[in-house]
């Protein structure tokens, strides 16, 4: 995806590229802070294990916001089309839509085993959420590829008739 991002801009000069990269990283940092705050609102300890919470937030924004920026760029119109109207183009946009939701839902579901009394080392905050996030991300990748394949076939058939 990063490659696609670079490819798209390689005809132009370097300055806008750097500008874009700076903007993108700024967005990632901002979203990391947002996710950190969100985790705290969800009940993560404020001071204790704040490094872990921050890493979790970073991972979340890398699996959600970063791919979106790479694919959708800064065009808010495309963002709203993908996320608000749920009508992405068949391709990278669909993948991004799926992985974003997948990793968020995965991280959300990852919090469920924490209160269980199994006393396993992975039940400690935020390990299970990190695992859930990654699993959700991967599952979304798989599902989106299947979905795109299916839709592509359907549309091909549709075009022929």
């Amino acid at each position, binding site marked *: 995806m990063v490659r696609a991002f670079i490819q798209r801009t390689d005809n132009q000069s370097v300055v806008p590229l750097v500008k874009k990269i700076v903007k993108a990283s700024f967005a990632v940092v901002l979203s990391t802070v947002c996710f950190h705050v969100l985790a705290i609102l969800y009940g993560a300890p404020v001071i204790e294990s704040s490094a872990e919470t921050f890493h979790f937030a970073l991972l979340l924004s890398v699996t959600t916001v970063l791919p979106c920026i790479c694919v959708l760029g800064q*065009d808010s119109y495309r963002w709203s089309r993908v996320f608000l109207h749920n009508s992405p183009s*068949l391709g990278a946009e669909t993948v991004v839509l799926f992985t974003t939701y997948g990793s968020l839902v995965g991280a959300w579901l990852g919090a469920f085993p924490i209160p269980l009394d199994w006393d396993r080392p992975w039940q400690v905050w935020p390990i299970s959420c990190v695992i859930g996030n990654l699993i959700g991300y991967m599952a979304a990748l798989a599902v989106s590829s299947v979905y795109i394949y299916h839709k592509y076939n359907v549309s091909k058939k*549709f075009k022929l008739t």
Partner: protein
Amino acid sequence: MDGNKVLFNKSKILKLLCLALLLCYASFLLSFFPMRKPVPGYASHRALPEWLLRGAGNDSKAHHQAPRPVVGRVVIVVIDALRVDFIFHENTTMKYLKSLTQKSEALGYVARAHPPTVTLPRIKAITSGTIPGFIDVISNFDTDVFSEDNVVIQMKKMGKKIIFYGDDTWTSLFPNHFLRSEGTSSFFVTDYTEVDDNVTRHLSKELEQDDWDVMILHYLGLDHIGHLSGPSSPLIGPKLQEMDNVIQKIYSALNRKKEILPTLLIVCGDHGMSDQGSHGGASSSETLVPVLFISQAWKSMIAEIKDGSIVQQIDLAPTLSILLGLPIPQNSLGCILKGPLINYSIEEKAQAFWVNSQQVLNIFEYNVPDYENDLCYIQCHIAFSHHSDWLQKLRTELFHSTWEEEGYQLIQEYEDCLRTMSSKIASSLTKYHMYGITVSVFLLCMILIVVILTALQKKRSNIHFHHLPLVGLCTIVVIFGHVTICTGQTNNMDLICQKNPQSVLLQACLLACFFFLAICVADLILMSSFDSIKKPRNVVSHFLILGTVLHTLSFLSSSFVEEEHQTWYFYTVSIHILILSHFISQLHQKKTEKPNCVQTDKYTALNQSKNLCVENQSNFQIQQHSYTKRNSIEETKTYRFNLRNVTSHSNTIDRTCSPLTDQSVGVSDYFEENCSDRGGIVKLIVSVLCMLILSRVARSWNQTGNKWLARPDIGDWLNRPENKLPLSAIVALSLLLLIPARWKSKSHTTNFLFTTACMAIYKFRLATGSVYFPGLDFLQDKGLHEAWFVYITVLTLVIHGIWKKWREPRGSLGSPILGDSLQSACTLLMALLFRPHNIPLVAIVTYQEHLIHYFLPHCKLSLTSASLYFWWLGQTTFFYQGNSNSISTVDVSAGYIGVLEYQPLVIGTLLALSTYIGPIFWFFNLLKYVCQHQYSAIGDRRNDAERSQCSMETVCTSLLISRTFTLAIYTALDNQSENITIELSRAKFECQHSMKDNSSIHIVRSKK
């Protein structure tokens, strides 16, 4: 019978369903917590068999009975909530007691008490050696005479004179057994000095007297301190020291007298204290208590027995009986402690164990069905024959030491078989009535089906008498089945199979309940037509329903029951984040099309209709542009172009997708309402964020549950004695903040009342000594007047609200004045009944309520979702308060605020109010919300009254469904899990929840 006769209308059905729910749940509870079956009568001395007499007969003649008494006078000091580490810790302040243990004059044990760790069952356990049933917790506040065989009755029968001072639970359990007694009331939890002084002041006089044989003292102060401020409170040290001095006083006075038989002093705790200062649960800090036998008699010999193992609290009763030469109480399951028997010879010890085994064997035969084949029964009889052989050997054996060794082995053998027998009996005592449970669960499931069916019905239809023959047939089959099952072999002792009047009445009620439900089910399934379930409109509604189902299923795991608060906290944050994302997306939609509202509406409406139309319309433009482009910029352009096309062809689309027209009109309505400006939506977003922050603060106020209980929280910090100043400041601040929050411009009287009541609450806190006020140091009275003033204000507010409601035209629920005044009353009650450190929570909850009434109307929740939403909030508030599913988190002191005497009804009401005020508060909020935002979606052609009635019915139905669902699942799953304590408390809470819900439903219904 007229076939079309309307049997019940919907509101009647709801009421009857509530009743049926309560009935089924009651019968479930009765079958799940069966009563114990004690051996009737009182124990007497057992005639010893020939071989035992022969064995013991050669050295003394008077051994027709149990071992001779070895102690004369006995003093029992029970210290309420004496935890193990209060005595056995290195830095304990009970110096004298510690020195006694070191001088080997005291024999210390750690005893495990059986849960429930509440005073009344514990006293019963200590005196009778039985394991009281779980039903005894509920009757803890309501004591009557203890008629089962116990040590006190046996003492009295043997002509011993008993005197008693202390907790008046004893005097109500044993009203005529004491020579002299004075009970101190345990109902002023805030008082921890006077209760103990009232006991101690009798001591010096009584210690001079010679006319008593047994003295029992029960000190309550320590428990009160625990309830007030926990086990780490600085008050604990001096209190323990005071107890130490009392023990020293008694012990030295006893030793001054020279008597034939040595005197014995027993110091024990009835139950422990959790780290929060409460008790009732099964954690080791609550169940482990110290037991000390102090006597000069075993001064020299004690070194040889160092028994460090944990014993049972019920062992105290048989040990005491043996030492005093009394018969062991009939139903005791305890096993004699070897330590205090030092003064007996080895034959006498063996004899004592023989007596104990005989007595436990008796209960075993009474309770276990085929006891002859049981392993421990056989083991016990082997021990008897060993005993006899061993006594035979006495004469032939030459080496005394090996013979003695065998004696100790024999005693060990006895002890082993006693322990296994008693644990087996204990488990057989808690047997469920399976049949009763099955029937209740079945009926609960039927209720669930009926409620769901009524909710799904298209119209407000009624139940008719169409299927009487079918239902009658079913009922007859059920009656026959019931009779067959009850006359069968295994179930004849079941709760709903007995022949006593109560059981018959219960059976009749259940049958009627079944009949009613069968009619409903038959009618609803066979006759009515259903809508397909109305789809909830947005993600928020979906999530509310999904979350409720998930929460119920989470009861499968006991740790989710223990940590239920985590589920609720997680849910409330998630729901608000969903709402937040909803608003953000709206904001974005505003941003994309700037110019003016009408165009935006059209755009969004058409945009949506476009999405929906794609499949129907073979609009070639859309097809053309959909999948062909790869380059995204270009694609966006074409997309826009495409849209413009669609906009220009809007008329065509409207015509072609005629079913969609309604929807697009609806959408534009929706946006016209909200599209005042972007600023409005930003405000909404900010309010949701505030809500989230407030809930985060509130959840860190009290840690509860099990896993993270020990984590420090804000409440702990505020409760530290050095933080009294911050506590006072924060209490004052939150009370001040409450006043503007509930300030209503209309009514000055209510405003005035509310303000003065807030001040009275602060003064009440001042009087109980939990907060400071500059210039005022300490008030002598206990704040009774202030508390009463607040109660009267609350009543006035409620009556005012009802009166206002009454004067309105009937049927309109439009004005929220009733909900408002009820809410004010709730707020005041919360501020009064909560512990001081929880008062800021009241302010937080009040402000949350304001925020919700600001943003919730814009979420467009359906009635069902709205009721679920408020139910979730209520649950969350319940846990914010520090409550949990364990009974030990109930704040007992709240029951005694402003109460002068012990009145069970008043105290029970106050306790229930202080525990459940959160859910009640949010329930009133739901009422207010429903009144304010009458749902036009329900019945557009009806008048206001009908509409409000209809919305109320929907609310009731959805609440009822959620409760029934939880109950049905929960009762069905109960049978498998093991942790009875959790279950009990959970069950109790469920019961109270549903009672509360149902009663509130009744209130609502009757108000109309």
